[in-house]
Structures are given as structure tokens and as C-alpha cells.
């Protein structure tokens, strides 16, 4: 047993992120970075963001379209809904890859590949591939009227940032949330990502790398870059090293009184030291009960990988992490990208996530965390009502579904709709930044007031709060 050194007992100083920005922008006088306090009533304190990479078929998940089965095999032009192909309505798409093999109009209607059942008191219909999420329907607000403009997987970047790939890169939602609200923990980063990233390695962009998500892995042995010495050092020696660094920096602070950067650096060493223990500790699930593990599906090898990530997500939430971002689905484009074999693809992937997600919602609820934890389920776009090849669906930016639960949302709600074919979002259509605005609102932030000098969040299309899904 080694003695706790004085370094480890020292009190935590002020906020970190704001110091980083302040030093970056010291030439600006009038402007002040956010205080880290919400400026509106705060319903949610943190976000768990579940992103299904590749594009989930809205028609086979949360937006039933029996007409697809009725008109299966017919061309869209032969149905009463031919007007969905009106070129005016198709204009909003902004093509990145010209003449790509994918991202095309698919006109031969492909029947529904799965049945639907009604769930909960609300009686919301959910596909048979998501029965466990179905069992939580009364907690969930479904938005069935999303649209975006990128018809390729750059739409993943777009869903996270609000901007199309061909426009300048801007910070992602998680970065803005962390920037606007600051940290709730002295032991962990505020913005964490798990799983394969969408193809844009920066989150903070002009906010700076302090607002990039920290990538972690659920492996307790190697959860984070440089989390433990790459060349072995004994624990007492490392503690002595940190103690010496602290003492020398303290003496330096006497030579440079009022040096904010130095103060921030001293605090960063405290946090770094704590993180070395706290991050692996969070990944270690030994203390979780068998019952809890079962709830998430840790006992089944199909659901185990995502279940583990979601238990870790809950543990991060409990430990004060602000924005926990999960990406599901490997591959450059994302596993959900079912250009062929949709039935096999979606039924398998749904099985991987369905029980873990319901486990997360139930676990958060039983721990009283669902009230102030906002869970978001999203994907970059939907899939075409028409078939691609014999058994697939193509990318579809004109209409798709996402959902939110907890954190001040109204469970058991369906908001918005697509037309009878699931082609266009028609009732209450929402661009992706409406989801962002809603999340910021629930967190107590004003989507219009997030800025740094010379840069407002998004500059335009800030998004509108979707009032109908608020409790």
C-alpha cells in the first residue's frame, strides 16, 4: 500500500474547458464564454446518443407502411401516390458523389419485410424486429418525419453537426453541449464516444480539440489513448512523479502569479491522474449484478457487445459525463447500409441493439436517472420504399424516423408522419437541426446563443425546438 500523496488530496480548481477557450481568445474583450450554467430551465442533464450507422429503414422499424405490401412490385407511378416523385419535392437532396451506384431513386415498390405490433398503453406500432424497444414504447417519443439533404453517408456527419458535407465543417452537437454546459466530473472527460466514428475525426472544429469527443473502448485494460504508461512504471513511482510535477508547478505559480494557463495545466494533471483510475474503473462491470447484466442482454453473445457498451454508458452517466455518444455498426458506410439482403441485415442488427437499448431505458428508469437523462436513437437517413436489386433498399434522405426518451420528453408520443409510402416527411417535417435544438432546449441551452467571436453555432438553420415531444 502506498501513501496518498499531497497532490491527490488537493482541491479541484475552476472549470477547465472555459479556460482553454479564454486563453485562445484573450484578445476579445467584450465577449465571454458560456458560464457552464444552463440559461433556460434544465430538464435533462446529460445525453446518451445512440447512432445506428448506415441508415435504418424507417418502414421496417418505427414507421409502418402497409401500402408497400399492398403495391409490392408495382412502380411508384402506378400507385395512387405517384406524386411523391414530383421533381420539385426531390430537389432538396444535395449530391456529393456524382453518378454513384447508390443513392438513386428506386421506383419498384418493395414490400414490408417485417410485421408490426402495438405496444404499451399508447398502442404505438413497432416492428417485430424491435420487440424490447416496443416494451418501452410508453417512455418514447417517436419522430416519424425527419429529412436531410445528403443522399450518401456524409449524412452521418450532417446528423451530428447539422451541416452538409460540402459545407464548411462545424462543431458537432456533443461539442456544443459540452461547450455550453461544461463538466460535471473531475475524473472523466465530458464528451465521450464509443464505437466506430462517422467519417469526420473532429467534433470541436473551431471550438478546438478540447471539445472533441474522447474515444474510449470498453476494454478495462486499454480504454483510452495514453491511459496508462506505455512503458511500465510502478504506481508509487508514478504518484511520486505527479507529486513532483505538482510541487514544481506550484513553485512556478509563485514566479508567474495569475497565470491562468498554468492554473489550468495544474488542474489538468489532477484530472489526468484521476482519469487513469476512473476510466478503467468505469469499464469494469464486476460490481454490476447478474440481474442488471441480464436486463441488457450481457448473457447472450449476440447482444453482449452493445449491452456492455450501454452498461458502460449508464455508468458514465452516473459519474457525470455530459454527452455519451455511441456509434453502432462497423464498416466505412455503417453496417445498417442494406443495399441488398435487408431482411437478414436488419433482423440481425436489430437483434444486436434491441434488448440492450430496452435494458438501458429500464435500468435508467429504475435508478431514477431517466428523468434527467435524454436518450436519443438516430440514424443518418431512411431507406427507399422501392427495392434496390432483388432484396435491398437504397439511401433515402426524404423521410425517416428517430426517437427520444427520458430527459423531459413525452413518452408514448408519435410526432409527424411520412406519406403512405414512407417517401416524404409530410406532417411536421423536421430537418436534423430540429433534433439538435430540441436537445439543447431540454438541456437548458438556447440554440441561438451558442457562439464564439465571429462564429455562431451553425450561422443559419439553427433548428426549431420540437415542442410536441416535450413533456
Amino acid at each position, binding site marked *: 500500500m502506498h501513501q496518498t500523496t499531497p497532490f491527490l488530496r488537493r482541491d479541484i480548481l475552476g472549470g*477547465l474547458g472555459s*479556460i*482553454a477557450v479564454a*486563453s*485562445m481568445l*484573450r*484578445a476579445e*474583450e467584450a465577449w465571454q464564454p458560456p458560464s457552464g450554467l444552463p440559461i433556460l430551465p434544465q430538464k435533462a442533464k446529460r445525453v446518451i446518443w445512440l447512432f445506428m450507422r448506415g441508415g435504418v429503414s424507417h418502414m421496417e422499424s418505427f414507421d409502418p407502411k402497409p401500402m408497400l405490401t399492398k403495391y409490392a412490385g408495382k412502380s411508384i407511378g402506378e400507385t395512387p401516390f405517384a406524386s411523391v416523385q414530383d421533381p420539385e419535392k426531390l430537389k432538396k437532396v444535395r449530391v*456529393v*458523389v*456524382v*453518378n454513384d451506384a447508390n443513392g438513386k431513386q428506386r421506383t419498384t415498390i418493395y414490400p414490408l419485410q417485417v410485421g408490426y405490433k402495438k405496444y404499451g398503453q399508447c398502442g404505438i406500432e413497432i416492428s417485430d424486429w424491435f420487440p424490447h424497444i416496443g416494451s418501452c414504447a410508453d417512455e418514447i417519443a417517436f419522430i416519424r418525419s425527419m429529412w436531410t439533404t445528403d443522399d450518401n453517408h456524409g449524412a452521418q456527419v450532417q446528423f451530428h453537426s447539422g451541416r452538409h458535407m*460540402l459545407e*464548411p465543417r462545424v462543431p458537432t452537437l456533443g461539442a456544443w453541449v459540452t461547450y455550453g454546459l461544461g463538466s460535471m466530473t473531475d475524473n472523466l*472527460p465530458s464528451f465521450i464516444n464509443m464505437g466506430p466514428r462517422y*467519417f*469526420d*475525426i473532429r467534433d470541436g*472544429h473551431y471550438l*478546438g*480539440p*478540447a471539445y472533441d469527443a*474522447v474515444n474510449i473502448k470498453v476494454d478495462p485494460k486499454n480504454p483510452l*489513448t*495514453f*491511459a*496508462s*504508461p*506505455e*512503458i511500465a*512504471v510502478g504506481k508509487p*513511482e*508514478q504518484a*511520486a*512523479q*505527479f507529486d*513532483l*510535477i505538482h*510541487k*514544481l*508547478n506550484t*513553485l*512556478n505559480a*509563485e*514566479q*508567474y*502569479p*495569475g*497565470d491562468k*494557463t498554468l492554473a*489550468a*495545466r495544474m488542474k*489538468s494533471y489532477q*484530472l*489526468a491522474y484521476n*482519469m*487513469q483510475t476512473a476510466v478503467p474503473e468505469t469499464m469494469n462491470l464486476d460490481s454490476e449484478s447478474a440481474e442488471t447484466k441480464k436486463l441488457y442482454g450481457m448473457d447472450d453473445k449476440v447482444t453482449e457487445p452493445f449491452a456492455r457498451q450501454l452498461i458502460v454508458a449508464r455508468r458514465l452517466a452516473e459519474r457525470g459525463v455530459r454527452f455519451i455518444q455511441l456509434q453502432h455498426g462497423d464498416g*466505412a458506410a455503417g453496417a445498417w447500409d442494406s443495399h441488398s439482403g435487408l431482411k437478414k441485415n436488419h433482423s440481425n442488427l436489430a437483434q444486436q441493439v434491441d434488448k440492450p437499448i430496452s435494458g438501458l431505458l429500464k435500468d435508467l428508469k429504475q435508478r431514477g436517472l431517466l428523468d434527467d437523462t435524454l436518450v436519443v436513437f438516430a440514424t443518418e437517413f431512411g431507406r427507399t420504399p422501392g427495392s434496390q436489386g432483388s432484396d435491398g433498399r437504397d439511401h433515402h434522405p426524404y423521410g425517416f424516423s428517430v426517437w427520444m426518451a427520458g430527459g423531459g420528453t413525452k413518452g408514448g408520443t408519435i410526432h409527424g408522419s411520412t406519406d403512405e409510402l414512407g417517401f416524404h416527411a409530410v406532417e411536421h417535417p423536421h430537418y436534423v437541426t430540429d433534433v439538435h435544438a430540441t436537445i439543447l432546449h431540454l438541456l437548458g441551452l438556447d440554440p441561438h446563443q451558442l457562439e464564439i*467571436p*465571429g462564429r455562431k453555432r451553425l450561422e443559419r438553420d439553427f433548428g426549431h425546438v420540437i415542442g410536441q415531444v416535450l413533456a
Partner: protein
Amino acid sequence: MLALAWMALPALAVDYEKEIKPLLKERCYACHGALKQKADLRLDTTASMRKGGDGGDILAGDPALLLERVTTTDKDDRMPPEGEGSMLDTEQVAKLKAWLAAGAPSIANEQPEADPRAHWAYQVPKSSGKSVDALLSARLASKKLKPQPEATPEIWLRRVYLDLIGLPPTPEQIVSFTRELKGTDGKNEPHASHSSHPSYSRVVDRLLNSPQYGERWARHFMDIWRYCDWYGLGAQLRHSQKHIWHWRDWIVESLNTDKGYDQMIVQMLAADELAPEDRDNLRATGFLARSYYLFNRTTWLDETIEHTCRAFLGLTMQCVKCHDHKYDPIEQADYYRMRAIFEPLHVRLDPWQGETDFEKNGLPRVFDLHLNKPTFRHVRGDEKNEDKSKPLTPGIPQVLEFASFQPASVKLPPASAKPALLPFVLEDQLHAAEREITTAQTTLDKGRQALAKSPQPDVKQVTKPKVLVSDDFTSAKPDQWEILKGDWKHSATGVRQHETGAERRSLRLKSAPPTDFEASLSFTIRGGQKWKSVGIAFDSADGDDVMVYMSAVSGGSKIQVAIGNDGKSSYPPAGSVARTISQDVRYSLELRVRGQLINASINGESALAYRLPQNRHQGALSLTAFDADVEFHSFKLAELAADAVLREPAADKSVPLADAKAAVALAEKQLAAAKAKPAMIRAVFTADKARKDKALAKAAAAAEASYKLAQAEVDLVKVEADPKAKDAEKKIKAAREALEKTRKKAAAPGETYTSLPASLKAQEGPEESTNATVQTYPDTSTGRRLAFANWIADKRNPLTARVLVNQVWMRHFGAPLVANMDDFGRRSLAPLHQDILDTLTVDFMNNGWSLKHLHRAMVLSELYRRSSSNAEADAATVAADPDNASYWRMNPRRMESQLVRDSLLHLAGKLDLTLGGPSLDPASSETSPRRSLYFVQNADTEHRFLAVFDNSNVLECYRRNESVVPQQALALTNSKLSRECADALAAKLGKLDAEPFVTQSFLTVLGRPPSEAERHASLEGFQALKQDRSLFLQALINHNDFVTLR
């Protein structure tokens, strides 16, 4: 609804100057102020509001017009108009209402907005004739601020080393510098004033003359100019260009030779027009090649315009892509006039001397390709909505037009239009051709050796085998053969089986064959749906059998052993050899079987040796066709002679005879082709050079045709040798046809020929597949970029040099003079230190735009020697100017990521100072000792060590972030890099006693000796670390002063 809401609010006392004027300024002035006067209305003074516009006084009446227009729900009338900004909110409306209700009180002497053209940055800078220090002293005195004293010489030295070469001084350099100061002073007080001591300028000169200066400052400019290695998806290039590092090397070299910044700008934008034959400086155009984007031309040009203007001019042109500028006197058409400057632009790789493979090296450069392509305004910035009513002529914003913009078309030398004529191309191509000959000769020699070692045909037997069956199939012999399925028809040439489909059709021999036998079957495959397999099956009984067959299946023709077990066949990989087997070719399949050993030959050449894995069971022999329309010509069965020699598969390591023969045949053809190439290269080059000489063109065409014929023969042999390849049959057919074509061409070559492949035009979109065949480009350039570059780099341009001086100042002093590095428009108010900025700017231009001159002016200033500490500072000064706006002290700065890594390696004595060269694999950045600017950097690559210290953002980086995050602590305490450098440094310092060790460690890592308190704490810490020198040094690497330029 909105109107009701504000009417319900009680009247408030509202301050016009504090609450109304800023609101109007933000929301209305852009269209109703000095910049523009829409509807002839200005809102920048109450007087002008009272005067009103087309609709009269906007403050009079109830409700006043002003109020009416900002509250109406009528979309045609609302202000600000739709698309120009959101409506005012309830609170803002309430304030306006209250102000109007109070009679719209104004302020005394209210001045209208100044003429936008009078903006400070649009005026030509004037020198004060005074030094930076004199100007600063006066400012400090006038503000009653007291400057801090000088920092110690060690601190100055570390500052200037890191600033100018990006590496800290060694202890020897520190000691020698301080000794020099003491020595010539003749004093022992190193802290006395040295303001005019020659040692300072000697150090600065030495550093500026060091090649590392160019590397250090190149990295700064690579930030501003968005240096980015190519990237895309997999092998597809989508962004930037291959070998763009040539531009990086050009930056380093230009800085080291102190090329004028004005020249650098012109070369980066227009070296191809300025001096098209100056290949060294063509590298500069990497600046434009960097923005290449495969998928979208508008995105490419947008980035070009935006970042050219932000980097060189501090002009935010990106704002006017969609609408007129809200702050600056620039209109949307100006954007498209500027686009017209770049409209003809395209990118290509020119050859790099000594290399003919563009994957390995090449010179990325720009040129004008689309000379007459019109530019149209995009309505509201929508590229799909071009205003075709009038094309825009190239031009620059009028506010900055000190001389008329007159591009003059540039006539290009022949080698610019045709890179094949570059003087080294012929030699390089001939060298490459000679290398090909050598390679082909070597391959042929090796092939011949292998052939000599190959097993010869399997006929080494003395005894004549005893023939049991011999049939030429000219007539049916029902007593000898039993038909097992199939439609068999006899003729003079044999028996033909017509039926196809995946089923076996056989003639079974009625007599039992001997256990060890030899058999041969001659046949021709005439067709089949897919498999086209013909073979000999034996040991057939109870659903078991062994079969050796040849299959002409497309993409996988082969000879194969199949083992049948209970009616199911398995195909052992060891029993399979790829062979070209074609339809309508007569083959002979010869089998020799002894016990479990099978030898098979095709046309007398051994093709396969295989040993069956299990014991054999005697059974019948049959001739089989599987999905094959086949003709059997003859069959022979004999007992295997006792002295027949069979080959074992294990011993079969030599190349099979057929393969060896094929390899030699290919090598012979390749050598022939290689030998035809130099003549072709010479003839083509000669014809190209002469231009339009018919006789030479004919000769070139003839030489090319001969070469292509030889090459076509190679191609055919190649595809024939790879029957397993995908679509092999198609390819063979195509190769035969191609050969036929080239034969015809060789017979009548004509006069057209292909120039040497001496350039690679970048794809104009992902569909363009023949870009590499383009070898001739326009022989003129529009001269637009040159005119544009000359306008930027003109002394009369009020922005260019100012923006640069501000960039350099920020990097030496930690805070810029103008806060927005990339926006000198009206949003940037006149800076506090405009006199310093302008004086340095004029001085810079008058000294040939010399960066080294500018550095000297800054780093040899008194300000640069000032302490960055607040300690013992005058309390009134700290209170009056806590942010150091007046530079009463120096600003400490954090090292950029590259400095952290380079300094660590330098301390450890590991840094490799090799200059330039291709970008290095980013994965090696934690193990390679090269400087950090040499690793691949693009939007797809993350350097895990550099990233945590705010690496440059390749999309835009006018100023690095200086964040403080815990990952930096983890990187410096836990990375292998930091620990290994500490280890190496410990080894370098040797086994000093604790006290001198601590002193020397401070001097090495932090560039200064420890204070008494630090020495004490360090000795204690050293003990706590059990005197582990490496861990102690690593602790110092984690000292805030290590990553800080104090």
C-alpha cells in the same frame, strides 16, 4: 399576435445609445446605413430616420412606419426581409415601442456611419518612422502603465530558439550565450541591461541562417495555407494531390533563402504564368492544387476563393457567395468576378526528373485548361441556379481597386503545353525503357534456367506397355462400351456427345481395367453451359470413384482430381492445377496410375502429380463429359509398365514443364516488346519536337505500331497463362482481337501517334477515365491569376502586408495586433496599436518583403525581451490592463504540437535533421526521428500524440488553439515517446551527483537553472523517485515551463 404581445407591455425607459442604436446597427444598417441605402433610407442617425426614405419619416405616426415594418406578418413588407434575418423578438419590439413612445429621443451630435471606404484597413499604411519600442513606450506612458523588466537571458534565448527554429537551445548554447554576455560586459551580473549587446543579434542571425528556420516557419505557413496531403476513399484521390510535399519543400526553401513574401504570393498563385519554365517555382502552385476536390468543382473553387482571400488579404469573400456583404462594401457579383479568375484553372502532375511513374513522384501544378469557360452568378449561392443572363468578367472588389484589373493572356513555351518536350523526359523515358529491357532479360534468363530444371515428359520407360483397349470411336462398339446417359453420335472423327447441363454423361468400359494402368484420351470440347469438363473416371463402384478431368470453365479452367464418395465429390486443392483449356482445341489427357499415385499429362507434358489419400477399391473405368458438348477422338488403355517412372507430388517442387515453357514464352515476348520501346520513344519524341513534320509523324506512328504489336503479343500470352482469372475467356478473346487490330495497324501505321506519357491530368470528376491520355494542353494561359496575384502582392494593396505582419506578430508575441487574423473588414475596428502595425508593414515592404528582416525587427525589440510574469508588477498597471492589451509584459505561449514532439526528440539527441522529401507514414510519427512537419497530414489522419496538443486543422487554421486538456498530461507522462526521450536524455547526462544532476536537468529541459526552492523540491522529489533519473527528467518534461515559451 406579436403585435398584441408588445402592446401589453408597460412603457419602459429606454436608452437610445445603449439599447436602440446597437439593435438597429446589428439588424438594419447593412441595408439602411453607410454600406447601402435601400429605399433611399438610412437608420444610422435619428435625423436620417426622421428624414426617412421613399415612405417618409419612419418615426412619426402611431404606429410609426419603423414599428409597423418590423412587426407586420405580411411577408412582402416585413423587415428584416425573409432570408435576411429573423424577425425582432418581443423584447426588442417592446424597446423600440417604448423609445418611440418617449418621442424617439436621440443623442447630441449623432454622427452617421462612416463611409465604408474610409475603413482603416482599406487605407494605405503609413510609417511613423519610429521603432516598435518607441511607439510602445509612448503608449504605456500615456496610459500610465509600467512595463515589466527584462526576462533573464536564458529565457530570451529559449524564446528565440523556439520561435525561430522550433528547437530549444542546448545547455552548451545557453552557457556560451550567458558567458558571452558576461565576458564582453566585463561584469558578473548576467541580469544587467544588455539592450544593445551584439550577442543578441548574432544569435538571431545564426538562427535565421539555420536550415531549421525554414522548417519552423514553413509549418506556420502550412497552417495558414492549409497544407494537406492527398486523401480520399481507399485508393481514390478525392482531395489535394499526390506528391503535394513538393510545395512544402518549396515553402521551406523559399523561407531559407528569404524570398520576398510578395514573390511567394505571385508564385503560389501564378508561377505557371509568371515563368512557366521555372520548374522549381512551379512547386509553389501546390497552394492551389491543394484545394482540388474530385466531386464538386464549385466546392473546390469556393475553398480557393475563400482561403486565398482570408490568408493573403484578411478579406471574408465567403460571405458574398450567397448575398452582398453585410459589413464590407463588397457585392455578390464580386464573388463571381473573382471566381472567373479561377474558372479556367485545373491541376495536373508534371514529370519529376528521374521518375516516370506518377505514383512514385510527380510535380503537382496548376494550369489554365478551360480558357473560355464562362462564369455565372449562382442565385443565392445555389450552384444549380445559375443566372445565365450575363457571364461575369474576371475582376476584384472595387473598394480595393487601386489600378484597373487587366489580365493579359500569356503565351506558353512548348513544354508547358506538351510536358513530353521537357528536356529530361526523353532521357528518363529511355532510362526506364532500358530498365525494362534489363528486367525482361533477367526474367528470361531465369525462366530458361527453370525450364532446364523442369521434369521432362514422362516417357522414361523401356518396356512397351501392353495395350488392352484402343478405340478411334468411328463406330459404336456396344460390346466394349456401356452408355451411361448422354447422346452419343459416331462419325469419321470420333464420337460426339451433345447434351449439356450439370450432369455426368459417360461411356463405361465393360471390361475391368488393371489396377495400375496408363490411359490416354484425345478429345475436343465443342461447348457447354458452364463447366465443360471432360475426363477419365476409374475405381467406380458403389457411388465411389476417382476422376481426373479437364475443365474449360470460364475464369477457372484447370486439370483436377475429384474423389467421389457415396455419390458426393470432393476436390482436393493439391489435386488441382490451373491450365488454359479452350473450346475447339484438341487435347490429349494422359493418365498413369500406380497404387495411390496418379500422374497426369496434357499433350505429353506433365501437368499433375497427386497421391490419393486413401486405399483404392477396384472398379470400372469410364470416359466422362460433365456439362460438355465433346468429341472423343481416340482412347487407349494399357497396363502400366513395371519400369515406368512416376513422379511423386512431394518431389514436384520444380516448375511444371508447361509452366516453365509458358514463362519463357512470356519473357521472350516481353523482352521483344521492351526492345521495341526505345525506338518508339525516340521516334515519338522527335516527331513531337518537330511538330507537324509528316515524315517524322509517320515514323513515330510506325514505331508506335510495332511497339504496340509486340505489347499486344505480351498481353495475349499473359492472359492465356492465367486461365483462373476472372473472365479469363473474355480476356483471351479480347487480347486475340486486340492483337489482330495491332497487326493491321502495324501494316498501315498512318501518321497519328501518342505522345509520351509525361503528365497526368487530374480527373475532372469521378467519371472521367481517360484523363491520363491527355498529353497536350492549351498553349496560352489567361493571365488572370497573374494579374490577380500581382494585385495582391502590390505595395499599394493596403491589406496584404498588414495581414502578414499581424500573422508574424501574433506568432512572436502571443497576441495579434488585429484580433481577427483573417478578417480585416469593417468588423475589425482600428487596432489599438495601428501605428506599430503600419510602421512595421511599411518597413517590411520597403525591405523587399523580407521575412527575416521582419523577424529581426520583432525579436530584437525590447518588448521581446520583457518578462512574461506578473510578479512584482505595478498594481495599477495590472488593474488597468489585466489582459496585457498594451504589452506591458510579454505573453507566455504554449508550444505548438510539432514543437512539443520535435523538442523532446532534440533533447534526447535523437532528432534527424534531414531536410525535405516525401511525406512520411503518419503511423511512424511516434517512432521516427524526423521533424514533425514531414508526416502525412490530412483530414483523415490523426496523429495521436500531435492531436492532443492542438495539431493544425487542415481545413482552416489561421491561428492554433492553445488548449489545456488532461490528455496532454497523459501523453507526456504515459507515452512511449516521452519516456524514451527521458531515458535517452538520462543516458546523455550520465551519472552526475544529485545536485549537479538536478541543475543540469533544469538547464537541459527547461533552458534555465532551478531556483533555490525548485532545487530543494527537486532533490526531495528525486529521492522520492528512488533516484530514477529517467522518471525525474520525465517529470521536468511535464513541467508547465517545458511546453511554454516563457
